[in-house]
């Protein structure tokens, strides 16, 4: 035994060889075995966080985790290196080519199955990790959650039947028939890939020890049953979900996972009731799903906006279509796994409400406390209201998940994308900051505000016109067959086949816009401290020789995020006007356009277009993220931030508007810390928020990680809707995160 309670490799195989057959074989009692040392830092986490991490998973599982997190698998990925002549065949339709490409990939893509993996099947091609379809050289799909929950209970054979039934009926045109036929070929490809994995396992069995042979045989037996058939038990359900997901990925698609606890909960419940599986074994199996999700780490050395953006989102908890709370043992197992393995590659959002079990509130806090920004929460009731208000039927609204990041959608039914825009540049334009002409001089604040709104209206109208013509192909047969509407209509995923076709309208920069409007209103028009042309000239000169004025503004104003009436009311006004304008066109040409508020890290990209702003920022200042306060302006701690944020009516913004809280590790230590985190979450629900990220992090650690990245290989950090390893960000992104991190004593 290497650590107390953990098994070494030989014992692991000995005991786990009978996996699924009822004996407690994974060796580790699933009671809590706390680490002896308080300051043991597994896997390079944040060392200023002190907590006892339970040690329930086996050594093998920890080893596989470490290997995946190290990037070893990612570094071994290759581009498809075989001939695919059909690509240029003029007699083949696009869908036929797609289907043949899928078959070619299934037959030729390298396979990778590590010794000791309970869940198997690897997406090994580099094209996939670059959002491209192997062999075809075109972009794949992402930003949605495919209907795994619909296919899992019926298996591929059920899906096949659906497609065949539809083909047998009337009403499909040639293109529709072509699409559905290619879907059938794609299913054949999926089966071919599965069979190759089985063959590899049979190969591996030849040189395996007796115990290992049993272990591998179990995996083979599982693959022979799923994903072709409905799962008969929890292990099969987990493998089926992974296989479906992995084949999608292999063909380049980046779907979210969705409500994994709702999908898998009944299988686990049955196994537990029958006594064929215990919680410790179930946790082990599910942990291997998490390990698989890390296999693309390290696929590129390029630094940028971080390495974990494959939109592998997990949703936990919440009510189902009938209004019943679904939280079950799988919910808690997921949190156990994140806690122990600290894998950030499945960003996890919990749908919480006043009916969320106390146990779940507590577990969320216990995992949040470890940092990494991995677990966030949605105010479920408010979101459902906003979706119904937007026009979704209640039963579907209740099923909401997100697009793999955080934007809200209905899973298994939606083609989703979004248009990111900046509201702050419109204010700069209103003030005439961009050109050399004298700035317009508005006689009063209301005429200035009206001019700004007019620009916003025009911007959105232009955007809507551009949106009118989108979603005209390609079909993406593999994604299409997982999305309701495509098979029925015979229309592809990008071709308005899905039941819901969404292009969300997203604007960022509102906090800084509203703060700037407040300054203009008070300094120029009320106090008459200076007139508008003077102010605009100062801004055009990027505050040169006016540092005292700039500092005065920054220090004398209480901006959004400080629970201050004036600044919050101003933001409310802008928020209400923005959402009202967007709501004028809820749907047109079959494309829905819900409002959202976001930046997604474009605070950096937008710098080249932004000027100095009246709120005191220079033209090179990296400003507010999503719907959080502007960096450095929130001076009263997280409760004040939440108070400000929750003043908005989020039913007006059905696609979402997140707020991020950065909390010092010292503030949330021990039992008091857990109570504080639970308190923040419960109050967020009580006051009606939308989406809350809490990241427990201190800037000292980030600065150290910037200087000594080798000490922090797996320090995950929340960015703007996803977590990534801090050391994979380039310096500009790192600096942005450091500047955003609050310091609360």
């Amino acid at each position, binding site marked *: 035994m290497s650590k107390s309670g953990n098994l070494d490799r030989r014992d692991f195989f000995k005991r786990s060889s009978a996996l699924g057959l009822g004996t407690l074989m994974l060796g580790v009692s699933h009671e809590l075995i706390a680490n002896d040392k308080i300051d043991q830092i597994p896997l390079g986490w944040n060392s200023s966080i002190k907590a006892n991490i339970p040690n329930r998973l086996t050594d093998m599982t920890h080893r596989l985790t470490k290997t995946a997190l190290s990037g070893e698998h990612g570094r071994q990925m290759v581009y498809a290196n075989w001939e695919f002549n059909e690509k240029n065949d003029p007699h083949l339709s696009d869908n036929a080519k797609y289907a043949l490409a899928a078959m070619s990939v299934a037959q030729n893509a390298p396979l990778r199955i590590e010794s000791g993996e309970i869940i198997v099947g690897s997406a090994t091609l580099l094209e996939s990790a670059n959002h491209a379809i192997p062999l075809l050289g075109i972009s794949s799909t992402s930003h949605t959650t495919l209907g795994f929950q619909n296919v899992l209970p019926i298996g591929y054979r059920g899906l096949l039947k659906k497609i065949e039934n539809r083909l047998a009926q009337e009403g499909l045109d040639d293109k529709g028939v072509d699409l559905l036929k290619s879907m059938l070929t794609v299913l054949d490809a999926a089966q071919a890939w599965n069979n190759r994995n089985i063959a590899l396992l049979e190969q591996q069995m030849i040189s395996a020890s007796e115990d290992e042979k049993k272990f591998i045989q179990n995996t083979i037996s599982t693959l022979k049953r799923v994903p072709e058939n409905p799962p008969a038990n929890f292990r099969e359900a987990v493998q089926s979900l992974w296989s479906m997901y992995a084949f999608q990925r292999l063909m380049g698609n980046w779907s979210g996972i969705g409500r994994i606890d709702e999908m898998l909960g009944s299988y686990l419940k049955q196994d537990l009731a029958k006594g064929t599986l215990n919680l410790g074994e179930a946790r082990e199996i599910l942990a291997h799903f998490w390990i698989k999700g890390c296999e693309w780490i390290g696929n590129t050395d390029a630094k940028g906006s971080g390495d974990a953006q494959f939109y592998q989102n997990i949703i936990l908890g919440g009510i189902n279509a009938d209004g019943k709370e679904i939280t079950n043992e799988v919910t808690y197992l997921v949190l156990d796994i994140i806690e122990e393995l600290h894998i950030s590659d499945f960003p996890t959002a919990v749908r919480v409400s006043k009916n969320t079990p106390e146990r779940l509130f507590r577990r969320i806090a216990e995992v949040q406390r470890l940092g990494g920004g991995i677990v966030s929460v949605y105010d479920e009731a408010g979101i459902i209201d906003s979706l119904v208000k937007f026009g979704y039927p209640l039963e579907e609204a209740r099923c909401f998940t997100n697009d793999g990041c955080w934007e809200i959608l209905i899973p298994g039914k939606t083609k989703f994308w979004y248009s990111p825009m900046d509201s702050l540049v419109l204010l700069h334009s209103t003030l005439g900051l961009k050109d050399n002409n004298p700035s317009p001089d508005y006689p009063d604040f209301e005429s200035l505000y009206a001019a700004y709104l007019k620009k916003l209206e025009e911007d959105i109208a232009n955007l809507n016109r551009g949106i009118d013509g989108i979603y005209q192909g390609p079909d993406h047969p593999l994604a299409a067959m997982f999305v309701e509407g495509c098979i029925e209509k015979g229309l592809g995923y990008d071709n308005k086949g899905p039941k819901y076709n969404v292009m969300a309208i997203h604007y960022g920069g509102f906090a800084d816009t509203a703060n700037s409007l407040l300054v203009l209103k008070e300094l120029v028009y009320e106090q008459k401290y200076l007139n508008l042309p003077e102010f605009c000239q100062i801004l055009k000169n990027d505050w040169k020789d006016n540092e005292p*004025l700039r500092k*005065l503004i920054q220090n004398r104003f209480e901006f959004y995020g400080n629970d201050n009436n004036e600044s919050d009311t101003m933001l409310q006004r802008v928020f209400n006007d923005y959402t009202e304008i967007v709501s004028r066109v809820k749907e047109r040409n079959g494309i829905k356009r819900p409002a959202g508020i976001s930046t997604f890290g474009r605070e950096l990209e937008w710098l080249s277009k932004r000027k100095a702003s009246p709120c005191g920022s220079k033209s090179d200042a990296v400003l507010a993220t999503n719907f959080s306060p502007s960096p450095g302006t929130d001076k009263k701690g997280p409760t004040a931030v939440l108070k400000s944020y929750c003043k908005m009516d989020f039913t007006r913004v059905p696609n979402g508007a997140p707020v991020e809280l950065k909390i010092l590790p010292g503030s949330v230590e*021990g039992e*008091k*810390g857990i109570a504080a985190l639970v308190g*923040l979450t419960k109050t967020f629900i009580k006051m009606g928020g939308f989406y809350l990220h809490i990241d427990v992090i201190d800037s000292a650690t980030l600065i150290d990680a910037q200087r000594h990245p080798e000490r922090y290989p797996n320090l995950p950090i929340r960015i703007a809707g996803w977590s990534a390893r801090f050391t994979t960000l380039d310096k500009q992104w790192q600096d942005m995160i450091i500047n955003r991190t609050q310091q609360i004593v």
Partner: protein
Amino acid sequence: MSSGKEGNISGLVFDIQRFSTHDGPGIRTTVFLKGCPLSCHWCHNPESQSPLPELFFSKTICIGCESCNQVCPHGMAREILSDNNLRKEKCGTCDLCAGTCPSKAIEMIGKIYTSNEIISEVEKDIPFYESSNGGITISGGEPLLQFDFTLDILKKAMQKKIHTILETSGYTSKKRLLKIVPYVDLFLWDIKASDEVLHRKLTVAPLKPILENLKLVDKAGTKMVLRLTVIPEVNMSKNHYENIATLYAELENVQGIELLKYHDFGISKAGKLGFQNPVVFNKPTDQDVQRIYEFFEKRNNKITIIKG
């Protein structure tokens, strides 16, 4: 401070901190009152000791605009504020420099609030107190130095069903203590040293009346937590912890002991007050703290250690 209108009393406050998680259970708002009868060398809020408003000067924030020098009667605001001796000699704390400084490099510490204003601020976070069993903590300095102010705030907080904590050295008159006891849900009671001579040396104040007050409050039935600042060269002795353990056994309403590790966050604040050579102590290690826990656990297993 003075009594204003009936039911609305003024006091001098140097900070109001929302989302406090170290001054009692749950999410709290801590109100820090200015002025303290003690003069502990290790105080990490050195601006809390004087009962008068004081000026902070942070060199690192200063942008060099010299607006302060233009309004300073001596014309040398930055120079004076950087040196405690010059301050004593020349500075009249007229606050013109703070009023004009655009970057808040010069800041007046200590603002007058009425008790109603304090409650308005504190009640903003009631939803958070309710979700976490939090509330208000009054601290300082020594809040009992501004007795009427503190009493009024606690009364009003209690009326609004906000859980009340008073963080105190216990140095006050018995009469006042008994008057305030009905409005305190929990005392956080600091015990700097348990030997009379050492106590006077470290804090200036006598220990005896503090202990008598503690026992009085206990008798009145109010809960308390004993807080022990741990400073290795100063008060970390087996003798001290023996005395504390003995004291603990005599108290019926004590909820536990909390160990506060000395930290040096106050050093930069001392610099902002113009102290060029503030006293710095060594910090206790995690092992030091662990040993103290073990001592208490062995000595009397009924002693609860509140570990935050």
